[in-house]
């Protein structure tokens, strides 16, 4: 799992530019420069595998395995989606992620609202379960779900994977929404009520728009977690149902096929697009 869609904070209005921190006393400049170089080195290290993956997507391997650089070709980019197994896996991954996003988004928002707003018996237990889900090792969650499905005699496939994904996503959404709800200004809602709005209308027109960014963040997080999930899916997918990570695992055992590299690079580019779009959006919102 990874927090791909976590949005870093936009610079706040009251943030002082660096001057305040760069003290006027004997702060050595080289310290700064070292840190800057260090940051770039780390970023480079983080991006290195992606560069390699992208580079070898242009490889023209002799034989069936893509282990040595042989020659440059664009053909894999042309027929990246020609492999039926890959197409199927991609579609499966997207389908599961989308449904997870919606269902976990709804269920998680409801839980988050309840936990953030109300004090009730059982809130402690609910919090505990949320925490347990988030901090449990994926291996345990996957294995225990497998034991449940085995006990019930349930075949493993699309449904079991979906159940598992929704399960681990609910908590993430709930935690995000709850944090937002905790900081909500209730006076606006009270004002709406005073003006005669029903509970539902208040929610629809006042509360929900206010928490919407958190709901969206949570939903996107659920989507990202679902798309990238490997361990829990491996335990619960059975054998005809493949998601993208499972397919990559299976086919990469024989050496990364160039098509795998193409897909990887495409995923990365999608990420770049989303990140840039989000950054531009944030900046635009800043200005307005």
């Amino acid at each position, binding site marked *: 799992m990874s927090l791909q869609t976590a949005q870093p904070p936009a610079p706040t209005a009251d943030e002082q530019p660096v001057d305040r921190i760069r003290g006027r006393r004997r702060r050595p400049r080289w310290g700064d420069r070292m840190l800057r170089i*260090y940051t770039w080195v780390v970023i480079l290290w983080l991006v290195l595998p992606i560069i*390699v993956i992208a580079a070898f997507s242009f490889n023209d391997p002799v034989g069936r395995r893509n282990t040595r650089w042989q020659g440059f070709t664009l053909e894999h980019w042309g027929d990246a989606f020609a492999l039926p197994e890959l197409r199927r896996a991609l579609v499966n991954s997207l389908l599961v992620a989308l449904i997870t996003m919606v269902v976990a988004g709804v269920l998680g928002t409801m839980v988050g609202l309840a936990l953030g707003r109300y004090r009730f018996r059982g809130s402690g237990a609910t919090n505990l379960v949320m925490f347990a889900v988030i901090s449990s090792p994926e291996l345990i969650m996957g294995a225990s779900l497998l034991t449940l499905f085995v006990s019930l005699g349930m075949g493993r496939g699309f449904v079991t994977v979906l159940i598992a994904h929704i399960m681990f996503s609910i908590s993430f959404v709930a935690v995000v929404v709850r944090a937002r709800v905790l900081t909500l200004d209730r006076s606006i809602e009270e004002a709406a009520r005073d003006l005669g709005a029903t509970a539902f209308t208040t929610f629809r027109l006042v509360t929900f728009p206010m928490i919407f960014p958190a709901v969206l963040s949570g939903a996107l997080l659920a989507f990202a977690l679902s798309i990238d999930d490997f361990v829990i899916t491996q335990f619960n997918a059975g054998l005809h149902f493949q998601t993208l990570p499972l397919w990559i695992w299976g086919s990469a055992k024989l050496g990364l096929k160039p098509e795998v590299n193409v897909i990887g690079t495409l995923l990365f580019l999608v990420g770049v697009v989303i990140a840039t779009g989000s950054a531009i959006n944030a900046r635009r919102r800043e200005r307005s």
Partner: protein
Amino acid sequence: MGKRLRAKLAPYALILPGGLWLVLFFVVPMVTMFNLSLSQGDVVGGFEVTWRWDTYANVFENYHTQIVRSVWYGAATTVAQIIIAFPIAYWIATRGGRHKTTYLYLVLLPFFVSFVLRTFAWKFMMADEGFIFGYLKDWHLLPQDFRVLNTSFAVISGLTYNFLPFMILPIYVALERIDPRVLEAARDLYANPAQVFGKVVFPLALPGVFAGVLMTFVPAASDYVNSELLGGTATTMIGNVIQRQYLDQTNYPTGSALSFAMMAVLLIGVFLYARILGTEDVLKAAAR
């Protein structure tokens, strides 16, 4: 229904769907897994709960090396990540300026590509005769028997890489919240940079470090993908054992017992860590 009653029931109604999902697919599987850990049998004849506690004794006896090794790898990974992440989080938080968001995106971007694929890429890059080490060896910049892949170093590197954002982000958030005036005050009181760091910055960043440790130690210690792809014969982690027991050997009792054993050890580790750092009070403060 009276308004007050409705208001009272509201939280329960809200958490019902999500909570039910979690109970059914998180809590109940834990119970079934617990049952299986006390069972005997096989897939052909079925498993029966026989309250056989010596499965637990057996797994500790047979696999205590792997358990210890997993904790050690998890700890090493976490420490390495703190060391790597802190400077970069510090730099982005304090010197990032307008580009903070961009830097964070750059850090997160590689993690868009599937976790499985990234690890395969490292396997590819770390190959003894691969396109990195192969050339270095040809040019005699490295001894011919230099090796990275299939060692514990490779596994820990993989783990450090894969879970790094989970450490960078929390530390960044904690650092970003530090009021620059506090630092200025410290400097006004004649603290040198080391003291500023040791007595002001680091303690204030501690909640972030704690959150980071929590989000990386458990996944790292229970991981099996890195060990399977990058490890050798002496790097087997408890995750690998559990995975083999479940998926290869369908030895559910042993797998389940191992899972619980691992969970117990990890939980103890986390609580010990919290105790040592005395962060409980810190958490209380942070939560408010």
